[in-house]
């Protein structure tokens, strides 16, 4: 059961376009090996059928791309946004939320959970006593959500961006893996969510991390996601995209506010939007 040339060509072109990773001739067996488990999970009879599927199913396309680009996400990815989180966003919210003393954060394309747990570490280290926080980690992949819930990571993953002091403080060894401390795991809830589809009922968030996922969507869908996300963020809340992403030239209700070289987005109120502020 091997991949047809047409299937291989399609997949190679897709991956190259989306990620610049190149699969050239001779690598058919690799594509087949990496897509076969996804094909089975999706209920397709073989990889060729699955390749037809990804041409019309953006969710599966994304899973396929992830599987074909072995991409180890990093802890505290790009570092600067997390610095801004600790130095600017948290202090602002601590001042503003004195009544409820509770913060809500959304990790909106959480993948294997490094982002959500990085934030949990920072919160645990910075929140004054009497305060609480919850992090909602959502993703379109149930496999990823299971990984987040398990909170277990391999050694190569633990090398990526994790200060050694935090490694030993927040993780214990379980077999060849490292497992997150229970108090951090308790802060993170997982939920299946497809950004391109209507959102289920969600609370109002103080901070949303929507990093490195909008690149998978067409422009009109991107704008739509950004509009619907604005409705879920408190007027004094914050949105963060990936370091190379921008809302420039997009008609979306967000105001760009650079902080320490990080592009932070603040909700644009309807009134401000009308006056073009």
């Amino acid at each position, binding site marked *: 059961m091997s991949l047809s040339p047409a299937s291989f060509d399609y997949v190679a072109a897709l991956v190259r376009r989306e990620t610049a990773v190149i699969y050239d001739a001779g690598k058919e067996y690799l594509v087949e090996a990496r897509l076969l488990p996804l094909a089975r999970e999706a209920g397709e009879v073989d990889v060729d059928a699955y390749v037809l599927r990804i041409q019309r199913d953006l969710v599966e396309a994304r899973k396929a791309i992830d599987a074909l680009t072995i991409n180890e996400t*990093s802890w505290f990815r790009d570092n600067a946004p997390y610095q801004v989180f600790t130095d600017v966003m948290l202090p602002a919210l601590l001042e503003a939320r004195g009544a409820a003393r509770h913060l809500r954060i959304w990790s909106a394309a959480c993948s294997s959970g490094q982002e959500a747990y990085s934030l949990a570490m920072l919160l645990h280290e910075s929140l004054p006593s009497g305060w609480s926080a919850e992090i909602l980690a959502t993703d379109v992949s149930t496999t990823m959500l299971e990984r987040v819930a398990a909170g277990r990571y391999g050694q190569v993953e633990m090398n*990526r961006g994790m200060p050694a002091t935090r490694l030993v403080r927040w993780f214990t060894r379980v077999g060849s893996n490292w497992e997150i401390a229970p108090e951090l795991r308790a802060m993170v809830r997982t939920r299946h969510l497809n950004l391109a589809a209507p959102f289920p009922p969600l609370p109002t968030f103080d901070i949303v991390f929507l990093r490195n996922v909008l690149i998978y969507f067409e422009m009109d869908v991107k704008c739509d996601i950004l509009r619907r996300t604005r409705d879920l963020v408190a007027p004094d809340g914050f949105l963060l995209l990936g370091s190379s992403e921008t809302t420039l030239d997009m008609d979306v209700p967000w105001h760009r506010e650079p902080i320490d070289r990080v592009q932070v987005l603040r909700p644009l109120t309807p009134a401000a939007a009308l006056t073009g502020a």
Partner: protein
Amino acid sequence: MHALIIDDSRAMRMILRRIVTDLGFSCSEAGNGEEALAQIAIGPRPDICLIDWNMPVMDGYTFVTRVRSEADLRDITLMMVTTESEHGQIVRALAAGAHEYVIKPFTPDAIVEKLTLLGLVRDGVPA
């Protein structure tokens, strides 16, 4: 900036050398902790040492304790790069004064990220 690579494996020294020189560091090598101390004494002074744990003559842990006990070597950043990956070992190394810790196997990105965390690299070049 100057890096000193301390590992009894020639292959590992080659790999680490390539990573740090690609970043723009100058680089020297030692095969064990004692050789490394001798090199530091005669200079050039490293800004960072990448240190394996298990080496003959003087292991990496002992090297770290020695360096951290010398007042005039206090400004040298010490990063373990080792297969020793038990929680207790990492705690020991950090308690002895290592500033960072990379578990083998690692990818080049991991080293660059750790050097960035340490403030020795910014935007992919020596800070």
